[in-house]
């Protein structure tokens, strides 16, 4: 699915990531690390929002590094950004609709997709006519996930999906993720490592722009460094 080799990139003259080798197959992959480690930059690079300096990014063998964000999205990569990036002055339903309207393999299937998303998040159905900007943070997060799923993604990327949410909603979000695992590949970055380890198959630990550890979920759970630094035991 997604294959990154020798990736190096940054902003201006500041290098953020170097020598990144990274892979997501038909599975759920977690990306962990402290604030400022480069998680969001890595996601931005995948989405074409930050241009790589070196290395390559491939999606199913097709090179996507250097492509525009919108064409990467049209190839089946959907992002749930940390800042959600919704259209605040448009209705919930229009937000969802736009998730699929420009994706070639999803745009003809909008009504059915909408029903699916509404079944997954009943609150969105209830508020379908409300402006996205007037909803609570948790509801906006669900809408962002819903909008991403509308595009029938092959790869779903979630950047800190639980950030700023109350625990009950975090649990809800992860339940949804677990439910999705079978149909799409997932890449999720999280600070809430304990919660996300329940939902993933494999994980990477990113520190200071380098990958310092890669292992299965089980392996990470028992790794003494992870336990000490991220699970806080």
């Amino acid at each position, binding site marked *: 699915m997604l294959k990154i080799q020798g990736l190096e990139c940054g902003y201006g003259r500041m290098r953020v990531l170097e020598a990144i080798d990274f892979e997501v197959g038909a599975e759920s992959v977690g990306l962990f690390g402290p604030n400022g480690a480069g998680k969001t930059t890595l996601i931005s690079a995948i*989405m074409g*929002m930050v241009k790589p300096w070196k290395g390559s990014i491939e999606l199913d063998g097709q090179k996507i590094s250097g492509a*525009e*964000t*919108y*064409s990467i*999205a*049209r190839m089946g990569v*959907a*992002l749930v*950004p940390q800042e*959600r*990036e*919704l*259209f*605040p*002055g*448009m209705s919930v339903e*229009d937000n969802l*609709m*736009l*998730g699929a*309207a*420009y*994706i070639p393999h999803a745009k003809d299937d909008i009504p059915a997709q909408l029903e699916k998303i509404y079944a997954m998040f009943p609150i969105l159905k209830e508020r379908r006519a409300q402006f996205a900007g007037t909803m609570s943070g948790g509801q906006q997060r669900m809408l962002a996930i819903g*909008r991403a799923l509308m*595009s029938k993604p092959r790869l779903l990327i979630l950047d800190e999906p639980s950030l700023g949410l109350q625990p009950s909603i975090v649990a809800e979000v992860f339940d949804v993720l677990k439910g999705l695992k079978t149909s799409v590949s997932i890449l999720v970055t999280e600070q809430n490592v304990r919660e996300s380890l329940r939902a993933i198959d494999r994980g990477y630990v990113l520190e200071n722009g380098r990958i310092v550890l890669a292992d299965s979920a089980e392996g990470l759970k028992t790794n003494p460094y992870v336990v000490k630094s991220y699970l806080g035991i």
Partner: protein
Amino acid sequence: MAIQRRTAIAAAISIAVAIVLILWKPTVLIYGLQAAGFYAAIAIPMGLVLGIVHIVNLSHGEFMMLASYATYFACKALGMDPLLAIIPTAIVTAIFGWVVFQLTIRRALKAPELNQLIMTYGLAIAFSQGINLIFSTKTYKMPLDYVTSSMTIGDLSFGTWSFVFVGVALVFMFGLQFFLTKTTTGKAAMAVGQNPKGAAIVGINVYRTYGIVFALALALVGAMGALFLTKSAIFPSVGSPFTMKSFCLIAMAGVGNIPGILSASVLLGVTEQFLRAFRGTRDWAEIVFFILIIGVILARSYKGRKA
């Protein structure tokens, strides 16, 4: 709920003012509405560009001037009425606008706002000076019979042609509302306007959308340019005052609020005509424009702070 009540109060006040004016000074209402339609029809396309592409297009009036010149000479050459030229001019201006967008404005979208202003201002100068070089400062006016169409009620005789601009403003407004809220391309344009980053991650080609919106706005500018020729004489600097006026109306309405442009225009048009109708206040009409702008913007920022 609060919004609905406020709208109802505003509507009630407007109707009351309208009734008073009809009985007392009917020409104020007639010419005020005509002026409002004219202002709004010119300002709405600029509002569209500012609301979605986030560019203050200082060459807005010059684009209209170019459209008027194109219409004038096409009509002269073909012996055609400018009304028949509305749609062809709209198409030509849209294509021209798209090309200008790709060659210039697009390059400045990520630049600081000041650079964008200087660039569109540069375009404005290039357009008006270009026309000046070719046609000189001489003014052109198309003699048309229907523009003197008139209506007489009792002692009152007034021109009716300028009501066309009220119609045009309404068509522009409802047309754009329909486009932006009911069509997929329009919704994508709204999305781009509200959050270009969010639009890109759902697969919308942001720059292409900007280009489409700019071209659409210019199609409206072109249509208005053809109509402008029926009312006004044209000369190289004919467009530039409308850039400033349009910008101020947009500022009064609030960026992205297209129906608001129409309301602001009505407020301005009727107030201007009201002041002009009395000897003592005649010379205040020009100043009221700025007073209204300052008043509305202050009121809005005060309301914003309370909220």
